[in-house]
């Protein structure tokens, strides 16, 4: 018993051979990656399903994601996610360089490249948090009809989106929002939107230049259809909710499923990046205290590298299907 433990050669699996010339740990990492790839493809295909099901009314990514840090009010579609993609690919490169230095047993180089990888990953997660913040907060606000249709507002002369706050004013007798100290059977009330439906409707009637941008896409131009003033007035009179930003129930961008998939898929990916950063930090500390130098090889760096590249690979697909297509 003792001898079998002591003479266990980790390069050879128990059968006395190295299957497919790969170490046990590396192959298990590949098993995990294949299953995780199937999970992600399941999510992305489900997104495709909902999108094809609502092909004539799905939100247009360029109109949703157009923020760039420090450029307020500038319409910058995609530049920011393109930058995020570049950051993630770059951190992948520093990871390969770390693996490469590991093969040559250059401890300091491995540590340095690992550190760069961790920084890249952290910047990416931070960027994603910023992206979420913009998405949740929203910019313009919209109305929702009984059927769950989102009505956005555009100005007739410029054709640009108009925010609710620019044409709506609070009425003199606002609805009283309840708090716990005012009732006996009161549990909680969601934080209300800035304006009530009636206030938005009133503001709409006072501004003859306002038009409603519907969810439907004009198949010829590929843009959302803007209703006439008369049609707009009908739609606005049917509104039931004021929607500002996004949550898991409704969002101001359009179809409800859009925000759900956005939160779920980018959230699941962001969680992968976050756990990747944590694992990278653990490996980085192990490099610093010389664990792998003593072990004689840096295979752990290679294994965590596989995971890290996989996360990058998934982002390439998320980028395409959420922001480009």
């Amino acid at each position: 018993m003792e001898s079998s433990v002591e003479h266990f050669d980790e390069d050879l699996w128990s059968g006395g051979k190295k299957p497919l010339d790969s170490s046990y740990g590396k192959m298990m990492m590949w098993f995990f990656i294949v299953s995780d790839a199937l999970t992600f493809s399941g999510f992305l295909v489900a997104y495709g399903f909902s999108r094809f099901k609502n092909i004539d009314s799905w939100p247009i990514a360029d109109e949703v994601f157009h923020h760039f840090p420090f450029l307020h009010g500038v319409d910058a579609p995609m530049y920011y996610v393109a930058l995020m993609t570049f950051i993630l690919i770059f951190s992948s490169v520093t990871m390969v360089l770390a693996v490469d230095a590991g093969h040559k047993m250059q401890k300091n180089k491995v540590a340095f490249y690992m550190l760069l990888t961790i920084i890249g990953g952290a910047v990416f997660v931070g960027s994603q948090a910023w992206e979420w913040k913009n998405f949740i907060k929203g910019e313009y606000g919209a109305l929702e009809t009984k059927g769950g249709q989102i009505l956005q507002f555009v100005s007739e002369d410029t054709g640009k989106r108009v925010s609710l706050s620019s044409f709506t004013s609070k009425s003199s007798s606002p609805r009283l929002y309840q708090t716990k100290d005012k009732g006996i059977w009161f549990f909680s009330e969601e934080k209300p939107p800035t304006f009530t439906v009636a206030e938005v409707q009133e503001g709409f009637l006072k501004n003859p230049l306002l038009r409603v941008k519907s969810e439907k896409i004009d198949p010829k131009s590929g843009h959302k259809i803007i209703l006439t003033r008369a049609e707009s007035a009908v739609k606005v009179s049917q509104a039931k909710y004021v929607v500002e930003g996004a949550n898991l129930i409704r969002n101001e961008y359009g179809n409800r499923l859009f925000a759900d998939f956005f939160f779920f898929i980018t959230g699941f990916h962001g969680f992968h990046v976050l756990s990747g950063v944590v694992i990278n930090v653990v490996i980085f500390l192990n490099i610093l205290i010389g664990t792998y130098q003593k072990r004689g090889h840096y295979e752990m760096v290679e294994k965590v590298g596989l995971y890290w590249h996989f996360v990058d690979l998934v982002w390439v697909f998320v980028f395409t299907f959420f922001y480009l297509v």
Partner: protein
Amino acid sequence: MGHKLSIFRGLLTFKSNQQKIWGVLIFLSIVTAVEVALGILKPPFLLKPVLGMKGLNWIFILLTIVKAYYIAWDFMHLRDEKRNLTFSIVLPLLVLIPFLIFILLFEADYIFGVMDSGFVSWNF
């Protein structure tokens, strides 16, 4: 472990593994830049539908698969692994994912048709 240092079917050979990594990074950056440029310019002749989707979308998907190939082959060094290992990893994905895409997207297209031309009013 020996590294294979040629990419593009031997068109470009690098002197060391490190150089190859930088070369692949430059290539992936160019592809991403092309994607972003196309996404912003949206050339009108590419917006015509080809096989049920905008031509531009097919280009995006193709470029994405190209990027995925180079990430898997060079960053995840599948190029240097045994061929059997490479294909036991890649083939299940290449079979299952297109299959899933095929069934779900066809189903979605059918449901769209039902909602579009059926008697149910959902858009009120």
